[in-house]
C-alpha cells in the first residue's frame, strides 16, 4: 500500500526561503535551490514551494527560482503562490513543477480549479484550505487579509473537490510555526468530507508530533518550522517514524 508522505513545505520571498509563525514575522530560512538539493538527497517524498510575495501581491510566481529548485528535485515538486490562470500554471510546469497549488486565487475564482484540472489532470491540482479558530469555531482563513473568509471551510473544500481538485493541503493556521502539535481533529473532519488525499500541515514541533499525527490517521504531513530552525532532518525523522510502525519510504 501507499507509504505515508513527509513533505517539506517551503515559503519563497524575494528569491530566498522564509519561515514564520501563524503567517507572520517571517525570518530568512536559506537558499531555495540548496535547501531543495538537501531535501532531495535525504529522500523527501515531495516538495511544496509557495511564493508568498506573489500570492500577497497578486503577481506571478518567481519562475526563475522555481526552475532552479526543480532542477534539484527528483521527487514531485508542487508550486504555488500567485497562480490565477492556466497560463501561469503552464509556465510553472514548463519550469519543472509537477503539481500546481492554488489557494486565494481559487477562492476568488473557483472555476480556476476546473480549468487547471482540465488542462493538467486533477492529480496535478492541489488546493490549499487554511483553517483558523474564530469564536471557538473552525473558519476558513484568507491569508491576504489575515481574516476569516466569507464562506465555510467545509463548503469550500467540498466545492473544490467537485471542481476537480486532486489533493487538499489542509493548514491549521493557529498552529503554524508554533510547534504545538498537529490538528488531527481537523484532519478527520476533512477526510470525512472529501475522497481526496489530504496533506496536513501546521504545528509539528518535533518528531513525536508527526508520530502522533500519523497514529491518529494522517497519511501525508507537510512540515516547515521543524526543518528550518532546528537540527531535524528528513532521514532522521523518517527513521523514527518507521521505527514507530508507520509505513514510511526510508
Amino acid at each position, binding site marked *: 500500500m*501507499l507509504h505515508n508522505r513527509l513533505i517539506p513545505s517551503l515559503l519563497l520571498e524575494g528569491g530566498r526561503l522564509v519561515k514564520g509563525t501563524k503567517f507572520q514575522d517571517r525570518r530568512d530560512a536559506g537558499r531555495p535551490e540548496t535547501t531543495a538539493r538537501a531535501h*532531495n538527497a535525504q529522500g523527501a517524498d515531495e516538495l511544496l514551494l509557495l511564493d508568498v510575495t506573489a500570492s500577497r501581491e497578486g503577481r506571478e510566481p518567481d519562475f526563475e527560482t522555481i526552475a532552479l529548485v526543480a532542477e534539484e528535485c*527528483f*521527487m514531485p515538486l508542487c508550486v504555488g503562490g500567485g497562480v490565477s490562470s492556466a497560463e501561469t500554471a503552464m509556465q510553472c510546469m514548463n*519550469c519543472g513543477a*509537477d503539481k500546481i497549488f492554488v489557494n486565494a486565487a481559487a477562492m476568488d475564482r473557483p472555476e480556476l480549479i476546473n480549468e487547471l484540472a482540465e488542462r493538467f489532470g486533477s492529480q496535478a491540482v492541489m488546493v490549499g484550505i487554511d483553517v483558523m479558530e474564530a469564536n471557538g469555531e473552525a473558519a476558513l482563513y484568507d491569508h491576504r487579509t489575515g481574516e476569516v473568509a466569507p464562506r465555510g471551510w467545509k463548503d469550500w473544500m467540498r466545492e473544490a473537490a467537485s471542481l476537480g481538485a486532486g489533493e487538499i493541503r489542509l493548514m491549521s493556521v493557529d498552529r503554524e510555526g508554533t510547534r504545538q502539535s498537529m490538528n488531527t481533529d481537523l484532519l478527520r473532519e476533512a477526510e470525512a468530507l472529501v*475522497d481526496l488525499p489530504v496533506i496536513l500541515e501546521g504545528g509539528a514541533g518535533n518528531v513525536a508530533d508527526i508520530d502522533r499525527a500519523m497514529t491518529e490517521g494522517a*497519511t501525508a504531513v507537510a512540515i516547515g518550522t521543524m526543518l528550518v530552525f532546528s537540527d531535524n532532518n528528513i532521514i532522521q525523522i523518517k527513521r523514527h517514524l518507521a521505527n514507530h510502525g508507520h509505513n514510511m519510504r526510508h
Partner: protein
Amino acid sequence: MTEIAIVDYGAGNLQSVRNALEMAGEDPEIAATPEEILAANRLVIPGVGAAGHAIGRMREAGIDQALNEAIREKARPALGICLGMQLAAAALYEHGENDGLGWIAGDVKHLREVEGVPARVPHMGWNEIEPADGTEELFDAVRGKRSFYFCHSYTLRDAPEDTIAATVAYGVPLVAAIRTGTFFATQFHPEKSQIKGQQLIEAFLEWKP
C-alpha cells in the same frame, strides 16, 4: 540518428524527464514531429494530464503513426511514462471514449470504477511495485525496496497477463508497468522517484529488447 529523444505531444512536463536523462549521462533531443521521432534510436514518451485530449493532439500531429512505425515496426526501444503508458491501450475513458494506440488490449478507466480500490483517489504517493517474472533486465537494477511515485486517477484494466511487467497494491493489484515488444512503460514516474527511478531509467537505457 539521434541517440535518445523525448516525445513532445503537448502533454506535459518534459523538463523532469530531461533532467533525469541528463543525470544518467544522456543528451536527449526533443521530438515534436514525425521526422524527429523517426530519427531517434530510443524514445521516451512522457505524459501528464487527460488521455482524451492527449491522444487527439497525437493524432493531429501524426505522432501516433510515427510512434507506430518507430516502435512497432522498426522495433526501437521506448519508455512510456504515466499517460505515455495509458495511451498504448485500446480504449481510453477519460473525457468521453477515445481509441488509444491499441498496442495492448485493455481499457483505461477511472480508479473509482475499479472494485476494491480505496475511496481516496488519485492514487497519490510512493508505493512498492511487484515485478512480474521475466522482467529482470529492467527491474534487477533497482536494489532494495522498489517504491516509486504514483500520481494518477485512471488505471489500465484487462491488459493481457503477458504484457504486465509489474503490479502495485492499492486496495487491489493495479498495473504498475507494461511491456510489449520494444515498448516498456510505467504508470509511475521514474523521473520523480529519486534513486530507484534513476536506476530504472539507467536499466532502460541499457535495455536491448
